[in-house]
């Protein structure tokens, strides 16, 4: 283990620091709130000569991801960052990056998608990209955003994965919120990420290759099968890399963070910053002797179904908090809920009442009394045996 140096940093700056330490070969990016600070700070490091990175200020996010794809195909270690509509504009290239098996690392500072126009946090941007073949990590704090950025490099470039990674944190809430962030020594990060040795490179003229070429009815299917295999087998490798990082940093790095889940009757499953609010409430309720728990997946793609199912299967009632709507799913549930309930069904667990709470859309504050109301609902569901509404709304004016 090495000592971290603690600094007051906002989550965006924490990611910039990680990028400085990683010293990627190429960063191509376009500014968008609330991501701007990530690349703005990083471009300062480029200007100050603190990194060797080729910084490409492009004309759009589509161009940003296109430049990243080209640079990654050339064999470079590549990073970028975006949010909301910027991520939406990258859409075409997201699939090209994952389909070409390029280990690009993208920081998303989550923000609501227009329209109506809103710059504040929800997960509708990255949740829409959950089927794009990118791994997804979600950070509760600026510290986790920093840690995840470093781990993401190793995960993406692992020869048995070779898929791009999206490292997400909540816009403004952690992105602009200053907190105490432990920064590893530069050398420790550089040693941890190591040197990227791509198997193929477009610049290797002694071994010329073609990437992203025509792939017709005769092979496209096989290539997609390989891609899903890489994703399906990624979780044990991700766990191993998390473990290594835990040993290095001394900070716990489970892929699914469990609080009070050993004997919890009532569990809330929630991604990113609201997990902190939830844990605050859970501590108070535990002190009153009520067996509540909190589950916070740090990895969302690939989905850690086994870990979550194992933790909740003996609960009396479970609530999922979704900061995005998957429009058109039964009753308009959120993506986390549909993933969890389908995993439960696949495991043959059908008697456990699980309800979904859509919360925090467009940055709506999610405060402790709202979380308390969820635990109260769960107690009532368990007491009455009536599940009630499947999809509910937290913090919505009725």
């Amino acid at each position: 283990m090495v000592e971290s140096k603690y600094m007051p940093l906002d989550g965006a700056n924490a990611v910039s620091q990680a990028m400085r330490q990683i010293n990627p070969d190429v960063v191509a990016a376009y500014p968008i709130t609330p991501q701007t600070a990530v690349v703005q700070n990083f471009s300062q490091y480029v200007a100050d000569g603190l990194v060797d990175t080729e910084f490409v200020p492009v004309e759009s996010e589509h161009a940003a991801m296109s430049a990243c794809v080209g640079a990654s195909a050339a064999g470079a270690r590549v990073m970028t960052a975006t949010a909301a509509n910027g991520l939406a504009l990258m859409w075409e290239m997201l699939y090209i990056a994952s389909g070409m098996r390029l280990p690009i690392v993208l920081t998303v500072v989550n923000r609501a998608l227009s329209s109506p126009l809103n710059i504040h946090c929800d997960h509708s941007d990255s949740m829409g990209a959950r089927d794009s073949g990118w791994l997804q990590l979600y950070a509760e704090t600026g510290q986790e955003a920093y840690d995840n950025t470093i781990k993401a490099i190793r995960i993406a470039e692992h020869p048995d994965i070779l898929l791009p990674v999206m490292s997400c944190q909540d816009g403004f809430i952690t992105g602009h919120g200053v907190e105490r962030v432990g920064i590893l020594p530069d050398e420790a990060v550089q040693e941890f990420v190591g040197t990227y040795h791509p198997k193929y490179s477009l610049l290797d003229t002694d071994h010329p290759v073609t990437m992203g070429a025509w792939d017709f009815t005769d092979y496209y299917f096989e290539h997609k099968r390989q891609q899903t295999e890489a994703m399906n087998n990624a979780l044990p490798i991700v766990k191993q890399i998390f473990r290594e990082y835990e040993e290095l940093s001394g900070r716990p790095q489970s892929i699914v963070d469990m609080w009070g889940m050993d004997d919890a009757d009532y569990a809330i499953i929630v991604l990113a910053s609201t997990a902190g609010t939830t844990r605050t409430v859970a501590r108070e309720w535990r002190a009153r002797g009520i067996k509540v728990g909190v589950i916070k997946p740090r990895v969302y793609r690939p989905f850690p179904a086994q870990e979550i199912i194992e933790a909740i299967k003996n609960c009396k009632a479970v609530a999922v908090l979704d900061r995005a709507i998957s429009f058109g799913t039964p009753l308009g549930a959120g993506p986390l809920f549909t993933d969890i309930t389908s995993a439960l069904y696949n495991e043959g667990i059908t008697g456990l009442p699980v309800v979904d709470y859509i919360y925090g859309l467009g940055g709506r504050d999610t405060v402790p009394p709202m979380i308390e109301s969820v635990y109260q609902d769960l107690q009532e569901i368990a007491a009455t045996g009536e599940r009630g509404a499947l999809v509910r709304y937290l913090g919505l004016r009725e």
Partner: protein
Amino acid sequence: MATKEAPRLDLPWKEANPGGIVLDAGNSVTYITGTWRTLRPVRDLEQCTQCLICWIVCPDAAITVKDGKVVGFDYDHCKGCGICAQQCPVNVKKPHAITGEMGKVIQMVPEADFQK
């Protein structure tokens, strides 16, 4: 035409190159795209003036040229787009050697006519 060995088109998914990467430079010549063609360009070589405009405009490099002269079509790769026939500037002075019609030196004939 194709001097390279064609890549196998029957490999199981575990043996395919990840991401569809092509390791063998220039092997697209082995990929036969001429089967997509519904109209086949035919040339009256005797009345052709060898202006080479068809060679310039062909998007698939399917006009075969030898010693600076057009000798025919690469039907393994001609998709039958008809640009050569459209752009051919020379009208025949006697009926076309293959179609028997007046018109251009390069004319388009339905592939089905050759199956008869």
